[in-house]
């Protein structure tokens, strides 16, 4: 029987100087690199394939399989790009990992690069997290100094450079093809697929793009084996992962557990919904994954469980909202986020979010017209599934799922402002003075 919580990535986050090379080495760091470099690249890929590791960036695509798509006969250089753009609302796992344990990522990057025959790898970190950049820049410098990066790593004859790259404020750059354009010094707008990045990605060369957590999981898999990884989690959702609890919980935070744990179990560990309140709705994996309610407390938090509940595991960003929260208000805020972050390339996302924000403002203000709920749903249906990339699908998901579960609250928007039904001050963690916080 596997324990409820299984800290692997987060095991040493509490150690003093956990971000330093020496600390990391003392805990067995870089052994996986030494091990991998003695294997063939194909064998390394096979271990990751066999482990059942699926991408932790949201889509859950099998990581080893992604690596194996890199064509061997393509003469161009191969690239690994780590997606550290972490900007999906609610998602907050990669940044603590990079702050506390940047060497785990560097180690994973060396192994992944070796497996795909890449000699230049990039970490694309969102710009708005200064200290994360410092820690990552330093970790890479330390790794060069120790001979884990650069020429002839550990005498293996294998060379690798890692470039730490700063984004500049754009959620869409988490989408992998937009990230590539951004990393090429362009506007971060998604590219047409095909060609897929594995065939023509960065500089039109074969490129693997993986989430921070996906790559950081690789060293432990190399060290302990595919079977070990598979001993955690479920049949199709293998291994451990980071769940991030935030919002109206007694103790928000990161919980590293086998896939398949339920929100009820996690909430128990986190001390439940904040004192005196009860769960109203929650997101399983960031705001782009359709919201769930108390009904879904016992659904396993894995890829299949969430799909069965009509949503997605996403980034496992569990945002908890209690009964004081207006679902109209949160939906509007999320829609404002998508309007702000829409890259502008395609019509439905650019124009649709602009329109939906205006509609939702009317709902919030109690000024929507009778029938506007259906109009909103119809407009959403003209956006979802019609856009260039998945951003707009996420934008629509939060609207349609909110209406699905809380239609009457939207209909209240025909007559009553949300702040009257749900005085906003009550949702805050602190006393909000009468004069502050709109409609406290």
């Amino acid at each position, binding site marked *: 029987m596997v324990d409820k*919580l299984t800290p692997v990535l987060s095991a040493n986050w509490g150690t003093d100087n956990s971000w330093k090379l020496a600390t990391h080495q003392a805990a067995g760091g870089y052994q996986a690199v030494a091990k991998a470099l003695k294997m063939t690249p194909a064998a390394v890929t096979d271990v990751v394939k066999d482990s059942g590791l699926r991408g932790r960036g949201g889509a859950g695509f099998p990581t080893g399989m992604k690596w194996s798509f890199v064509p061997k006969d393509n003469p161009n250089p191969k690239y690994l790009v780590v997606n550290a753009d972490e900007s999906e609302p609610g998602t907050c796992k990669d940044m603590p990992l990079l702050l506390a344990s940047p060497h785990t990522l560097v180690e994973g990057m060396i192994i992944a690069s070796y497996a795909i025959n890449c000699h230049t790898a990039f970490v694309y970190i969102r710009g708005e997290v200064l200290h994360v950049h410092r820690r990552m820049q330093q970790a890479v410098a330390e790794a060069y100094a120790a001979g884990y990066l650069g020429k002839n790593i550990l005498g293996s004859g294998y060379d690798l450079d890692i470039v730490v790259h700063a984004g500049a404020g754009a959620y869409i750059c988490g989408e992998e093809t937009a990230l590539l354009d951004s990393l090429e010094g362009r506007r971060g707008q998604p590219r047409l697929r095909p060609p897929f990045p594995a065939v023509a990605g960065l500089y039109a060369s074969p490129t693997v793009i993986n989430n921070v957590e996906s790559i950081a999981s690789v060293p432990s898999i190399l060290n*302990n084996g595919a079977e070990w990884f598979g001993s955690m989690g479920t049949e199709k959702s293998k291994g451990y992962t980071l769940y991030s609890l935030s919002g109206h919980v007694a103790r928000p935070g990161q919980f590293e557990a086998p896939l398949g744990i339920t929100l009820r179990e996690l909430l128990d560990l986190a001390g439940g919904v904040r004192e005196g309140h009860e769960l109203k709705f929650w997101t399983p994996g960031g705001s782009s994954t359709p919201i769930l309610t108390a009904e879904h407390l016992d659904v396993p938090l894995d890829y299949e469980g969430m799909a069965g509940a009509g949503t997605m595991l996403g980034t496992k960003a569990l945002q908890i909202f209690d009964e004081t929260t207006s679902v109209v208000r*949160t939906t509007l805020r999320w829609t404002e986020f998508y309007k702000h972050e829409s890259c502008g390339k395609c019509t439905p996302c650019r124009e649709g979010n602009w329109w939906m924000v205006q509609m939702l403002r009317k709902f919030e203000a109690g000024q929507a017209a009778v029938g506007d709920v259906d109009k909103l749903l119809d407009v959403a249906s003209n956006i979802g599934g019609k856009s260039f990339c998945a951003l707009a699908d996420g934008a629509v998901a939060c609207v349609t799922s909110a209406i699905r579960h809380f239609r009457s609250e939207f209909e209240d928007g025909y007559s009553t402002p949300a702040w009257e039904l749900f005085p906003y001050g009550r949702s805050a963690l602190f006393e909000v003075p009468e004069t502050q916080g709109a409609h406290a």
Partner: protein
Amino acid sequence: MSGHEFQSFFPESGTVDMTDTTTNIDDTTFAELRQLASRYPEARSALLPMLHLVQSVDGRISPAGIEACAEVLGITAAQVSGVATFYTMYRRRPGGKHHIGVCTTALCAVMGGDALLEQVSEKLGIQPDETTPDGKFSLERLECNAACDFAPVMMVNWEFMDNMTPDKAQKLIDDLAADAEVKSTRGATITSWREAERVLAGFPDGRADEGPSAGEASLLGKSIADEKGWAAPKGGKS
């Protein structure tokens, strides 16, 4: 109401401020821009870091900065401008010494972010996207900053200020205004926005070792596991 107006008329969009042509860009800056360009297999990849460097030198994306990037990379100024106006971290007008961000995406907003933004805005006497006349502060309404387990969240010069309250916000601004020492909850001692931009450009400031490994929330699962004696299975064969 969401605490801000719905903007539909965009009188000054499309470009950086061309009326302010001042610049500090000199030969050293050009050398550093070239150095950034040389870090990548293809030089244009350095454009985002280069624009961060422009901000650290000029306190904004200046016309001279755009032209310098275009010159170093051999692309048109329109192409640089297209990039500079796409990303929110690039400022059109001079940022303050300290750049304050308050997250108001759904979760932070609900948990108190809206009230915090209003409070800070009132205290500084400026609206989001403005800079105080003394150049000390600029303010921004942030979208989710990947710190939701520390909500409500504020950022100073892109350093985390976790678990904010009105009192903490009050003191934070007062201390910054008084040039007192301020430490990020999960970062270094606060310096200035422009120094932060230099680090983002890729020139480390030697402060990586400041601050804790992790915040309390980040360690929560691990400490519960320790308490209960839970752990991942012991490594098997490999």
